Every structure is written in structure tokens, then in C-alpha cells.
């Protein structure tokens, strides 16, 4: 099975992220896990990829694949990179777990000419329904932790992220919301509909210069 086929089963959002990356460029994947996205980008788009990953096992898996990956995290280590070091900086499904999401986003926009962020949408109707009708903190397939042990400490909705992008002076070049099967929602729908029906969203941004 190719990397793409494996990902199609496990992390379809990464395939969507990969589609946003132009071939032959330089990419930093923040929170790169076992390096599957970086490998996909290297194999299919000839990308010069680098990664940051917190877990020992993840880093070792990446190093064994010949990837260049640093053990660290988005909050602590992005500050060390020089301006415009990468064409793309990718943060997939991790923004909500950072201590300072705004600072992380600002660093991404500084280090990379483009940033790609994917994040779970806390505005999804099922999340809203659990809070509204059950009065309990939502637990869903994608957000499977209980409130007391979740690593996700800074949830946002699609609308919240769009507002943050505006606040840090970023332009959203492309965006797509995915349903729970990873299928893109209709792009002509208003963002309000995405905010209700999107399981997660992916944004391609750059900062205004």
C-alpha cells in the first residue's frame, strides 16, 4: 500500500493538506507524528520536508524513515527558526493543543511564506448539541478525550479561527471544511453553514507584508 493509500484510510485530512502544497518546495510539519505526511510530500511532490514532533517514538520513526525531525513542540521551538525559512509551515490537528495558539500561528506565518492549519471545529452541531441538550462537555469521535484529561486546551470554531487570522493580519487564501468522512463540504455554502456542519477545517494562509 502506498503512503497515500494508507493515509486515505487513516488521516484523510492529511491528503487534503498535501494537495495544498506546491511541488518541489520546502516544508516544516509541526507535530508531524510518525512522519507519514512528510513522506507523502517527499514521495509524491518532491518536497524537502522537516518536522517537529513531541513524542520519542514519533521522532524515532521519522529518523528511521530518513526524515529530518526535531523533538520539540510548537510552543517552545518555533521561535528558534529564522524568518521565511520555509515555503509552507503545516500544523495539522494540533493548534487546539498548544498553550498559546495565537503566538504559534504568528510564528508559522513568520517562518513560512504560507501556513497550512487544520483544526477540529468546535462549532459542529453535534458538539453544540451535547453542550446544549446534555449539559456535558462534548466527546466525539475526533475529540475523544474527557474534559479532565484532554490535551486539547484551546478549542476553536471555524468562525473563531477566521477571526484570529484577521487579528494577526493573515490572509486566508484557501479554506475547506470536511465532514466526518473527510469529504469537502460545498464551497459555495456560507461559512456559517461550514461552522455548523464541518467536522474540521483546513486553511491556507499567508501574512500581509
Amino acid at each position: 500500500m502506498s503512503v497515500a493509500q494508507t493515509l486515505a484510510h487513516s488521516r484523510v485530512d492529511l491528503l487534503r493538506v498535501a494537495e495544498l502544497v506546491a511541488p518541489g518546495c520546502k516544508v516544516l510539519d509541526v507535530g508531524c507524528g510518525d512522519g507519514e505526511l512528510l513522506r507523502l510530500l517527499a514521495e509524491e511532490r518532491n518536497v524537502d520536508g522537516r518536522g517537529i514532533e513531541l513524542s520519542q517514538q514519533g521522532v524515532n520513526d521519522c529518523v528511521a524513515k530518513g526524515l529530518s525531525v526535531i523533538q520539540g513542540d510548537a510552543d517552545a521551538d518555533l521561535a528558534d527558526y529564522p524568518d521565511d525559512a520555509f515555503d509552507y509551515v503545516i500544523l495539522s490537528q494540533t493548534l487546539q493543543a498548544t498553550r498559546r495558539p495565537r503566538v504559534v500561528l504568528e510564528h508559522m506565518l513568520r517562518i513560512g511564506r504560507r501556513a497550512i492549519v487544520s483544526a477540529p471545529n468546535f462549532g459542529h452541531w453535534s458538539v453544540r448539541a451535547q453542550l446544549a441538550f446534555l449539559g456535558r462537555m462534548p466527546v466525539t469521535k475526533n475529540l475523544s478525550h474527557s474534559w479532565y484529561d484532554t490535551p486539547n486546551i484551546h478549542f476553536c470554531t471555524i468562525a473563531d479561527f477566521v477571526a484570529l487570522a484577521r487579528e494577526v493580519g493573515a490572509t486566508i487564501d484557501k479554506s475547506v471544511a470536511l465532514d466526518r468522512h473527510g469529504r469537502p463540504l460545498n464551497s459555495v455554502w456560507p461559512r456559517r453553514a461550514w461552522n455548523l456542519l464541518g467536522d474540521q477545517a483546513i486553511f491556507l494562509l499567508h501574512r500581509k507584508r
Partner: protein
Amino acid sequence: MLLDVEGRTVGDAGALLNGAVAQAVSPDSLTLRMSPGWPLRLDSGAALAPLTIAYQTYGALNAAKSNALLICHALSGDQHVANPHPITGRPGWWETMVGAGRPFDTDRFFIICSNVLGGCMGSTGPSSANPETGEPYGLDFPIVTVADMVRAQALLIDHLGIETLLCVAGGSMGGMQVLQWAATYPDRVFAALPIATAARHSSQNIAFHEVGRQAIMADPDWRGGRYLVEGTRPSKGLAVARMAAHITYLSESALHRKFGRNLQDRAARTFSFDADFQVESYLRHQGAIFVERFDPNSYLYMTRAMDYFDLAADTRGSLAGAFKGSRTRFCVVSFTSDWLFPTSDSRAIVRALNAGGASVSFVEIETDRGHDAFLLDVPEFIDTTRGFIDAAARARGVD
């Protein structure tokens, strides 16, 4: 190196010491003897000739000469990486890493390790004969730097006909050599694995080294460095230096786990200055076995080389400048409990490599075994090393 308290008992001290002197002069190793007409220019300005480099190799060099790995040894190490030590008979110092099926796989790679310049296991050092006097150099031996050590190694690699090394690897002072190799000869290093090291020696580390040197020089048998000529040996000084240094290679929790406050071969305190505690006995043992195999003057020169090491000094203070445009792939490794070369030192290297646009991986291995963890059987570290070397071999088309 961590050795058991119940380690080998010290045998005939005189015979062993003669063994140490013999290894310095005519080692049980391969040797490269440079012609006296070809001196090695040193950072100090001195020219060193004649030059001998003692080295060991394991495995076979392939026809393309693309499967060569260079291991750089640490302060108290030597070239005997994976064979019994010619003086002590103990196993090689990195047999966890080097051998058939190990990360430095002797079935697939050609592995080289040379005794550093200034060492005491056959490469030219302070116990070698000074051509001007015919006597051992002693303190007339010029001060050598890490860059000088690497220059000497490069002569050996030239001699072996190898243009580019698949990987240069080493821990501690060996890691300094790895960084120096990558900075001085970027095109000759395909992959670099600096472990538990720093791009410059810290003030605290210089301080510890000074304690060790003063211990040696305070020994009346040191005789201003002329002990070989005068037939004495500053064993007590060297043993104290080793004992003090050995503490810095461990961690408090490892010492506690291994020894606690346990008493050594006795049921109660003796109300004396005997080695009542196991940890005292252990340190004394470490000191005793070290003096069997190591030259006190070499210890002075090695520690000085480490103290002088500051890679950024050559590029006007910019460490990133030292690695600018490097195409070498790096894997930097640190250990959580290493307080001698802490993770912050490794992160400084990683930052500089990133700023210089180099390809770098960084792994911080979780262990309580301190600086010495790089010499020990730490599975995650061995896995990292194996993965990195295998990936480098694949990228270079080495089977």
C-alpha cells in the same frame, strides 16, 4: 565507562603500567606513520612531526568506498571500539553499538576509529618520543585542539582512500570532533551523529577539568610532566581526577539507585576513613582501573583540547555560520539526565543547524543514566542510531 563494583580486581600493577607505556609506543593496532618531512600544522602554530595515528577498523570497505563510518572517541576512550582492550582485556567501549547486526553493522559497513592526536594508545601524544631529545615529550608536546585531532583523522581517511564518509559519529569529546568534521570538511561527511556534546565547552565543564588537571599536577610523582623520564607515575593524582570526573558522568538518581547509602562489605560504619560506603569503593575502583590504562599527561592535553573547543569562534561568534549551506544530514542526540552536556547545549547546535538551513534531526533520550548513557545499553538510543544510519545508507545507495 560504568563498570561494576565487583569488577575485575587490579592485577600486577607494574606489569599493567608497563603495558600502558608499551601501547603508547607500539600499539596493538594498525598504524599510519607519516613521513617526518610532512609535519601536521597545529592551531597553536606548532608543527608536529613525525606523526603516528593508531587506529582500528571493523568490517570491509566496499568497492565504491561509500560504506565507511568514522567513530570519534571521547576523553577517556580509545580506538578499541569493538575488540578486547589490549591492556585491560575488557570488551570494546561501544560494543552495544558496533558489531554484526548492531547499528554500526560490521557486516555492512567499514568502521574506523583512531586514537586521537595527543592520546596515549599509539597516536602521537605527550608520551611519544620527542625527535629533538629522544625522550618522551612530556609538557614539550604542543597543545592540540579538537580541530587538530580532526585534521589528523582526515590524513588517515585520505590514506584509506576514502573521499566521503557515510557517517561520522561520537559522543562527548567525540561529538565535538563530529561537529568539527562537519564544519571543516562538509563535503566529506554525508551524515553526522553528534551525541551528548556541545559546540563549545561550558564554564562549569572547564572548571571540572581544571580540578582534574590540578589533581594530577599536585601529585609529587608528576615531576613537572617528566615522570616517564624520571621513572615515577602520578597515579594518585590521575585517579583523583578520574574519580571527580566520573561523578559528572553519572546522575544523582543513578548513583542513588545503584548505591544509595549502602555499606561496602561491612555491617556497620567503621568510624574511620575507609571506604565504608559502596559509592566510595566504586569511585576508588574507577580511579584504580583508569590509571592502569591512561597516561596522566594525555589527560591534561585531552581536557585542554575540550576546554578550547568553541566552534563558533572560527566564524566570528556565529555557530550558524559554521554550518551554513551544509548538505550533511545531522542527527543530534542528548539525554535528559546529562547535566555535563545538557539538552540545552544540543538544542543550541540544532538551532544553529536550522538557521544555517541544514538537514537536522534532534532526539532527547529519556534516561536517568547521565552523560555516560551514550556508552550504555539504552534501547531507544540504539534504535535512533540504527534508524539514522540505515536511512543515511539508503539515501547514499549503500546496501
